[in-house]
């Protein structure tokens, strides 16, 4: 049993982490909130006074807002569908008995450890370049005209790059979940003559539903703030300006801090909506 003495010691030990995170959360957040209500242009006069909800209205009514929302949804949605569908299939495959399972696992997981700027630049130049990229060679080999990936098919290209980076994460988590499945249940179903597809649909998929939800939520949070992959490939042109990139441009490139901050508050609200669902799942697990 914890004594009074150890309780106060525990509180003391927790203090640095709590205070640091509290500061990290409150100070910048308060500043963003404050700026979002000011007309603040650091390079053109500085802080020009109270703006009310002007920035919030202008951010939403600007012509680049809805295209940015659309680009964000397409990228996040596209990557989620690809990584989860392929992730389930890949996890099922890796769970099968085979030779060299450990090595295959390493090969599949590797992309997750590649830094975003490297993967984006390697894909952009060595695969998607319309003259020297491998895809161009492949297309020419089959007699087709090479595609200018990042301008003609910009969103699918970004989705491809980001999916490649996140597929290992989805696969690894789903594989971990599959491996915790009680194999006796599957064997019983097999003996009862349930076909493979039915076994997958009625036993494996329900078992995976929690892991899939976790993958979905965690990836959504990270994907909403995809940045480097766009920064080094299209710089937000050709319809790839996501909400995150739009805010970045408002704040640092055009130095309209008030407007960018209002956008930032929207992004924070959006991320929090997703986070609430994730926290519920994690919280339930904490009780167990």
């Amino acid at each position, binding site marked *: 049993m914890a004594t009074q003495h150890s309780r106060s010691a525990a509180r003391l030990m927790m203090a640095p982490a709590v205070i640091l995170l509290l500061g990290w959360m409150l100070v910048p957040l308060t500043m963003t909130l404050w700026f979002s209500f000011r007309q603040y242009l650091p390079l053109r006069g500085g802080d020009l006074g109270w703006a009310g909800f002007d920035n919030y209205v202008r951010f939403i009514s600007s012509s680049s807002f809805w295209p940015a929302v659309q680009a964000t949804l397409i990228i996040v949605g596209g990557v989620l569908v690809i990584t989860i569908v392929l992730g389930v299939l890949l996890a099922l495959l890796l769970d099968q*008995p085979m030779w060299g399972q450990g090595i295959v696992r390493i090969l599949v997981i590797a992309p997750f*450890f590649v830094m975003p700027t490297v993967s984006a630049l*390697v894909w952009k130049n060595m695969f998607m370049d319309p003259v020297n990229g491998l895809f161009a060679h492949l297309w020419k080999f089959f007699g087709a005209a090479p595609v200018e990936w990042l301008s003609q098919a910009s969103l699918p290209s970004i989705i491809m790059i980001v999916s490649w980076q996140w597929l290992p994460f989805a696969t690894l988590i789903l594989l971990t979940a599959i491996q915790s499945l009680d194999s006796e249940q599957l064997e019983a179903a097999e003996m009862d003559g349930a076909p493979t597809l039915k076994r997958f649909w009625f036993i494996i998929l329900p078992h995976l539903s929690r892991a899939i939800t976790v993958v979905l939520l965690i990836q959504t949070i990270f994907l909403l703030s995809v940045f480097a992959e766009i920064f080094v490939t299209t710089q937000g042109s050709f319809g790839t300006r996501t909400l995150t990139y739009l805010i970045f441009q408002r704040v640092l490139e055009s130095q309209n801090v008030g407007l960018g901050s209002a956008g930032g508050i929207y992004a924070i609200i959006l991320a929090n909506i997703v*986070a609430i669902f994730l926290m519920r799942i*994690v919280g339930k697990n904490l009780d167990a």
Partner: protein
Amino acid sequence: MARAVTTQRRAINTLLAWAVGLLIFFPILWTILTSFKTEAQAIASPPLFFNFDWTLENYAIVQERSDYMRFLWNSVIIAGGSTLLGIIVAVPAAWSMAFVPSKRTKDILMWMLSTKMLPAVGVLYPIYLLFIQLGWLDTRTGLVIVLMLINLPIIVWMLYTYFKEIPGEILEAARMDGAGLREEILYVLTPMAVPGIASTILLNIILAWNEAFWTLNLTAANAAPLTAFIASYSSPEGLFYAKLSAASTMAIAPVLILGWFSQKQLVRGLTFGAVK
């Protein structure tokens, strides 16, 4: 009881899995191969796979022209420093939450997790402004602190889930034998906690090494780590595939190796214990 599997079925699985695995790994393999080609061979049509003259000249050129070692050193300091600092702050916190839980422990853990969900771009300007005020822009100190803060929730959570697995009876036994708080931590808990701490360090070095929002936005020439160094190849001059590949290979090799050791921890760390 293991299910009996025919050799034929196993062979098909193996073939299929290896094909998919190699396909997914291919961009990395291709980068590594290209780094050993000359620039002319790197863009040869049709592409050369193994039948080229292997050379190390790109590695020499990358180091010579752009002082690769300086960026590498920045990455080491930033990733290592932020992880170390995070561990120092997080170990006591996670220890107290795991062994002296109170009613609020769960709330504190959940709240810490919620700070991780804060989109970085939402606080970009405040941090930028604070960095200017503090003179931290383009310094390693500033990045060490920011990366420590963004990874602190993950560090606390991972350590917490590891510490939770240490049986409490051992502590009680130690207390019966008259061990004080200090002895308890030093001689009983620490030896049992080391594997968990080591895995946490490993995963966080990887996360910090690859972080590419703050490192791109808060550095210029002095403190830029490898993420920013590679980004400078996005507006190149002339032939550069082989050099880009050499620089990329050197940038990802350390974490690729660390990453292979930390596969298991990856799941635990990145799902906050929701999937084990």
